[in-house]
């Protein structure tokens, strides 16, 4: 049995629709009515949601069959799927290596053919990273394009649900199904209504200006950079105009991302008190004693680390130093991206600066683990759409290329990625 799934299911669609006969794997932080939704955590190992997330309702209405809930880093906190309470998922391309994360189970299920399509969630790269490491396509939509109702929150100002698929066109078709405003998520926007992203996968790159984010190429492993540069040169031969773009703000993106994500996590995960759901902390002492015991038992190390660091960053005396400066950085990155889109239609970089690490290899130093997110987090901070598309291999391992678009510019990144496919 595959280690991509935490729970196998067979939830049939309600109607005939564009996803008839499609087997879909769903990341286990997306609520499914009557099917347990664990977030890869001991805290929610027995949690069975009493309602469907909006994206699940939309999948069912489109005729999809949900074949399982996929493994993930606990509450989405990780880049390798190794922090799951249920154990790691292996990369179908090379079983000694991680599939990436945090949506590693969703990417592995698609790469191994155990699902036709999958949903993941992307807070700092969690759809694009596993897509790159497993050799599939993954899209992080513009913030507000897809409803987060029923998604168990980790860092709600950064995250979006996104599709994973074997091809750009199939990923775009799934995005067409899940995109669109939802009255139950006040951050959704009307731009997502009645989309036809699949029609943008026409492979036409002639006349497109691609801005190469040189800071993110220079920071990458040279084997990864070589594959990326070769493919960009090929697009230039096919009529794309290539420009080099430097953004000074990107050097601070990982710092700002982790301050904001950890701060939001410390607040969002306060709900896990072991009273309404989760592991009970018992009845000795007062409420605070019981909560603290429930959370010791229910959370793994990485979750504790992020909740504590977030609590620290928001605490009196440190809020201005960390959180305020991280918000400045976020605004700076947005401004620099806006300026870059005056010179280019899409921006490009390697999705991940490294090849997929071996299992266990990246766990010892949390900070080194966080640095793997350098190329993916800027997009979440700037609320922009991005896609990861397979670009080739280095040493037999998949390399992904990332295209970033302006807000609600999904068609531009889908078109560029389809040309590279």
């Amino acid at each position, binding site marked *: 049995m595959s280690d991509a799934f935490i729970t196998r299911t067979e939830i049939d669609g309600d109607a005939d629709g564009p996803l008839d006969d499609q087997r879909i794997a769903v990341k286990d932080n997306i609520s499914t009515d009557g099917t347990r939704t664990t977030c890869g955590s001991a805290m929610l190992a*027995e*949690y*069975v949601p*009493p*309602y469907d997330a909006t994206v699940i309702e939309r999948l069912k209405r489109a005729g999809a069959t949900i074949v399982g809930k996929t493994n993930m880093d606990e509450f989405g906190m990780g880049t390798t799927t190794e922090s799951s309470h249920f154990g790691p998922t292996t990369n179908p391309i090379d079983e000694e290596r991680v599939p990436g994360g945090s949506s590693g189970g969703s990417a592995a299920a698609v790469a191994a053919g155990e699902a036709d399509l999958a949903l993941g969630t992307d807070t700092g790269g969690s759809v694009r990273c596993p897509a790159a490491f497993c050799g599939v396509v993954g899209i992080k939509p513009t913030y507000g394009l897809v409803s987060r109702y029923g998604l168990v929150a980790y860092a709600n100002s950064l995250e979006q649900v996104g599709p994973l698929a074997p091809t750009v066109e199939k990923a775009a078709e799934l995005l067409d199904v899940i995109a669109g405003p939802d*009255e139950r998520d*006040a951050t959704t926007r009307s731009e997502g209504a009645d989309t036809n992203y699949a029609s943008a996968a026409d492979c036409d790159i002639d006349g497109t200006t691609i801005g190469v984010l040189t800071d993110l190429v220079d920071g990458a492993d040279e084997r990864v950079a070589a594959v990326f540069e070769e493919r960009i040169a090929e697009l230039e031969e096919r009529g794309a105009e290539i420009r080099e773009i430097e953004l000074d*703000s990107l050097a*601070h993106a990982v*710092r*700002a991302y*982790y*301050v904001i994500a950890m701060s939001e996590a*410390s607040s969002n995960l306060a709900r896990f*008190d*072991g*009273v*309404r*759901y*989760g*592991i*009970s*902390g*018992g*009845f*000795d*002492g*007062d*409420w*605070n*004693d*019981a909560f*603290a*015991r429930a*959370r*010791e038992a229910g*959370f793994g*190390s990485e979750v*504790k*680390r992020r*909740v*504590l*660091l977030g*609590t*620290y*960053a928001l*605490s009196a005396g440190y809020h201005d*130093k*960390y959180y305020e*400066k*991280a918000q*400045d*950085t976020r*605004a*700076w990155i947005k*401004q620099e991206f806006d300026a870059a889109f005056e010179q280019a239609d899409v921006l490009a970089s390697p999705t991940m600066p490294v090849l997929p690490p071996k299992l266990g290899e990246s766990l010892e*130093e*949390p*900070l080194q683990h*966080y640095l793997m997110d350098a190329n993916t987090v800027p997009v979440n901070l700037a609320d922009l759409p991005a896609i990861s598309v397979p670009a080739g291999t280095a040493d037999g391992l998949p390399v992904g290329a990332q295209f970033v678009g302006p807000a609600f510019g999904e068609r531009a990144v889908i078109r560029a990625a389809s040309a590279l496919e």
Partner: protein
Amino acid sequence: MSDASVDPATVAHVADLARVDLDEDEAEAFAAQFADVLDYFETLDEVPEIDTEPELVNVLRTDEARESLSQDEALRNAPETEDGYFEGPPVG
């Protein structure tokens, strides 16, 4: 350089604020890791102050009763319930 000195007692204090019990080994390991991470965060100081005017749109709706979870559904995942209520430790 960094003024982020983090000892196990600081970690224990933050853990208390966050309502997470930690054993001693964990607090010690976290102290070293937190020092690394906070030291890395240090250069956020170099970031210029940015003035922004976020586009804000009023998304309030009228406050009308609508369908919600039943009491049974809301209690279904609770570890302990009594007479239709969540059960927790004594107050005070």
